[in-house]
């Protein structure tokens, strides 16, 4: 598994992303009042980088191989572990400047990582080789833009700012991220367990099995 991880994970990209995540939160720590949108940007980058880790450009070769998607995903999770370690360390380092909500910020990153892993793994089970690239290209800028503009922040507090109030409710935000992360975890587990197998056996296959069992008798 370590050998697979060493070759399969895009380590240069993971390293750059991990350093950038740390840099973004270091900027927030430096001046949280004016540089706060970088916190949301870091969450988006984390989600995008998780997607890159789970891409399998050689899908045509590895999909028919005996190692299942769950095993390969576990091997590639070493890249995700590095990203989450960088995220956790950066949040811990900046914890004093997170308006008293370091756990909520930490949870945003973890939830975003789980959602990213769920979506990319689901797309992998559908036969797409590099869904992480598509994911990152959409998610990183979309989340960044959301963090910058904070549209509807009173009603949809994705990235609350300061001490809440008109800038978004921290409790509601944490609840929303927990629900989204939980749903992502369930989706990820289902995708890994099913590994692309259909929920129902196709009728034609069921009929063939029946006829095989009849002829065997």
């Amino acid at each position, binding site marked *: 598994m370590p050998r697979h991880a060493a070759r399969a994970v895009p380590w240069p990209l993971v390293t750059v992303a991990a350093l950038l995540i740390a840099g973004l939160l270091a900027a927030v720590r430096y001046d949280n009042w*004016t540089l706060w949108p*970088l916190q949301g940007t870091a969450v988006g980058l984390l989600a*995008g980088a998780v997607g890159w880790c789970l891409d399998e450009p050689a899908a045509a070769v590895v999909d028919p191989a005996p190692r299942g998607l769950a095993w390969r995903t576990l091997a590639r999770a070493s890249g995700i572990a590095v990203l989450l370690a960088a995220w956790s360390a950066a949040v811990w380092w900046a914890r004093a400047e997170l308006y008293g909500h370091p756990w909520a910020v930490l949870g945003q990153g973890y939830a975003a990582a789980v959602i990213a892993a769920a979506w990319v793994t689901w797309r992998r089970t559908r036969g797409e080789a590099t869904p992480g*690239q598509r994911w990152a*290209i959409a998610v*990183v800028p979309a989340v960044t*833009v959301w963090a910058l503009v904070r549209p509807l922040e*009173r009603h949809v507090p994705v990235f609350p700012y300061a001490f809440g109030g008109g800038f978004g409710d921290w409790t509601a935000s944490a609840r929303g991220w927990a629900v989204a992360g939980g749903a992502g975890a369930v989706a990820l587990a289902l995708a890994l367990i099913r590994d692309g197998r259909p929920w129902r056996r196709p009728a034609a296959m069921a009929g063939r099995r029946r006829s095989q069992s009849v002829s065997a008798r």
Partner: protein
Amino acid sequence: MTASVTPTEPMLGVLARQEIRHYLTAKLYWLGAALLAVVTVIGFVDPTAASGGGESSTMSMIGPAALLGVLGLIIMAGLTRRSDRAAAAAGSVAVPERTRTAALAASVVVPLLTALVWYAAALVDYQVNPPSPSTVPFGPFGAGHVFAVMFALGVVPALGGPLLGLLIARWLPGRGVTPLAVVLVVLVTILMQGNFQSTWRWRVIWPWTYWYGPLGWNSGTGHWVALPGSPLLWIVYLLALCGLGLLVAVYHDPESNRARLRLLIAAATVAAVLALVLTMVLGLPDAAFNPLAGPNV
């Protein structure tokens, strides 16, 4: 056969129309445009929704810059890759890369027109909900200065963002480069937006920075401040940068007339440097503070 011998100009028109259609069908464009419409309407209907009220539309430029400029960068990078894939699939290339680059550049008309619609709405908002005297304009400058800043920060990014995406996609087509570029652009922009007094003199080098507002408000007095320089000449600088970016993107084609392009690139660089120097030298000589305390104090 006919395609390979068709003169470049008609082919450019056909391709440009096609790329404009592609831009118009990009989901990210519609996401950005819809969010921009929502933010603009909310700012119009409920002027206190932004950050305490009183500023009207004078600080609303982050909306189009992010939703049309930043998203435009991604959209254009995607369109460029799509164009390259189509060209590769065509085998023996019928259309040179420079023509495809020019056609892609033509599609910026979509975000540009959207930004102009936003600008018109922002001007109407300014007239209907005039800004408080404690914001802008005040003292040494009038409404024209404010309108120029709103144009530079709201409309020009709709041109510059997609062109930057085109430039990145041409020269740095690697995996993950575009999202990382977005993060870097946002990181530098947020550091250069004028909140740090040490950057006030030279911040105009960066193509997106505030010219007035409650800058440095966490450490300052809460009074609005107008930063030195001329926003009108800064628009010239930004447009020169856009032209420079386009020329460098076209230069990527090894079969283009690179000697001529080098001349044009040098001319655009000189124009940009000249406009930048004039931006710093002319206009407001020093930072000016509004004597009235800001609306959020």
